[in-house]
């Protein structure tokens, strides 16, 4: 399976990636290579194998519901580009 330039543009837009023509072209050929590999793997018979959601076959450890975090706002906000009244400031978000 080979991707079109339009496919790559759409994926880039969904992932909020700004890409120029050369990058789109490179990504198109790399992604197409990955899809070819996937197509090759489709040939493997997996009918009796339960799909895994993680590469490791172990399950999630659970944490006790106890507060362990301290207030580190000052340290975190020291490296923020802009803060005001304890809020992180970002360019205006319009809904």
């Amino acid at each position, binding site marked *: 399976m080979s991707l079109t330039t339009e496919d790559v543009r759409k994926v880039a837009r969904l992932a909020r990636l700004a890409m120029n023509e050369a990058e789109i072209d490179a990504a198109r050929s790399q992604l197409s290579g990955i899809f070819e590999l996937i197509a090759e793997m489709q040939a493997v018979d997996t009918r009796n194998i339960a799909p895994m959601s*993680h590469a490791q076959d172990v399950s999630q450890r659970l944490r006790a519901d106890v507060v362990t975090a301290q207030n580190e706002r000052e340290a975190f906000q020291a490296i923020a580009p802009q803060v*005001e*009244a304890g809020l*992180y*400031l970002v*360019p205006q978000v319009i809904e």
Partner: protein
Amino acid sequence: MKWEIVIGLEVHAQLSTQTKIFSGASTAFGAEPNTQADAVSIALPGVLPVLNKGAVERAIQFGLAVGAHIAPRSVFARKNYFYPDLPKGYQISQFDLPVVGMGAMTIQVEPLSGNAKPYEKVVRITRAHLEEDAGKSVHGATQGMTGIDLNRAGTPLLEIVSEPDMSSAAEAVAYAKTLHSLVRWIGICDGNMQEGSFRCDVNVSVRRAGEPLGTRREIKNLNSFKFMQQAIDYEVQWQIDTLENGGKIQQATILFDPETGETHAMRSKEDAHDYRYFPDPDLLPLDISPEFIEQMRAKLPELPEARRTRYTENYALSAYDANALTATREMADFFDACLAATLSPSPSPAGGRGEQVAKMCANWLIGEVSAQLNRDGLDMTTCPITPTQLSGMLVRIADNTISNSGAKDVFRVLWAEGGDADAIIEAKGLKQVSDSGAIEALVDEIITANAEKVAEYRSGKDKLFGFFVGLAMKASKGKANPAQLNEILKAKLAG
């Protein structure tokens, strides 16, 4: 043209954990901005999520309460989302393998209009899944900037998705109210709608009878039942008008404006719904063992439906009373405690009259107690009188020590000053006279002193009966047992 309304709900219930779903930061409401936003909440590079057991427990309890299948293995997924209120660039949620599968809930619908009677309906719950909440955006701080408070980011939510089983605003509101009551009942969510602990999204579509489903529009973030009803009513009418005028409905996300009572579409972005979910590689699958499920089942309190059945079957209470008593768990617990205390003194004056006493308890709770709570802006958790105090008074009604009007006086004092019923009855001299000899003597006196009126009464002026009752009550300083007084008076007046 007959239109059918199809409604499904997605409810976000904030789980009542101490900490966030994937980190040990506090979830307490109302803290200073970002003081509860730890490295995980603000998505510093290199942090990893660790799942909160308390959130999983609550999800399981909910599933059990609606008779749902609990997935032995469920999976967390990333939902891509590009707003600064979730700085990771995605929300951790569940997609194809949610923790809670198909369940159902019975709702009691009170039709909003006309003479339609209340009825029951079963609403299916498609699924419920765990996910994290986003932070809050504060607009209008610095010009051209948005302030971000990430205290709420990472708060555990249970998103409860219903089937499109509701066909009116009344049913949608009844479902939301029943769900709201249930999550509080089992203690997994505080249900505070003003603080956003229980938020409803409502999917609405209309179709002509018998036709396939119409295109739906989703009303987002309704935080009151009243707004929900107004929003649905407006939206349904808007959709019908649009279709009848030859228009088409576009799938859209819409907001309800309580000021105007109207709904309007949010600016919808192309691809906005292309979330590209994929399993989160930072989280392993969540395995839930049968033992874990049984532990959670053992922790569940008796559920509202079971309690309603117990009230109607054991105490012959009406469905209306049973519903009112199970509106909240606090109310139902108060009723149970009060009833037990009233029936317990041995030998109880109320003994062997379980149904009657239950009805009396129910009447006082649904009537006087609820009215007072309302008047004082309180609820059951802050009720100034205890079940034992109320029971002390009910016992004295049951054994005829006080009349109902005397009881109202006792109740007022209990409410305002506390204390116990017997002492109040004593101090206020509210003990009613049930000694028939004393009442007879009193009635005899009245009959003698009012020979003229008695003659009128006996010649057919029945209305005078009330006049005699008034005199007798006055003579007894309001203490005569009213039922007994009526009986004696009737007999004596008959001559």
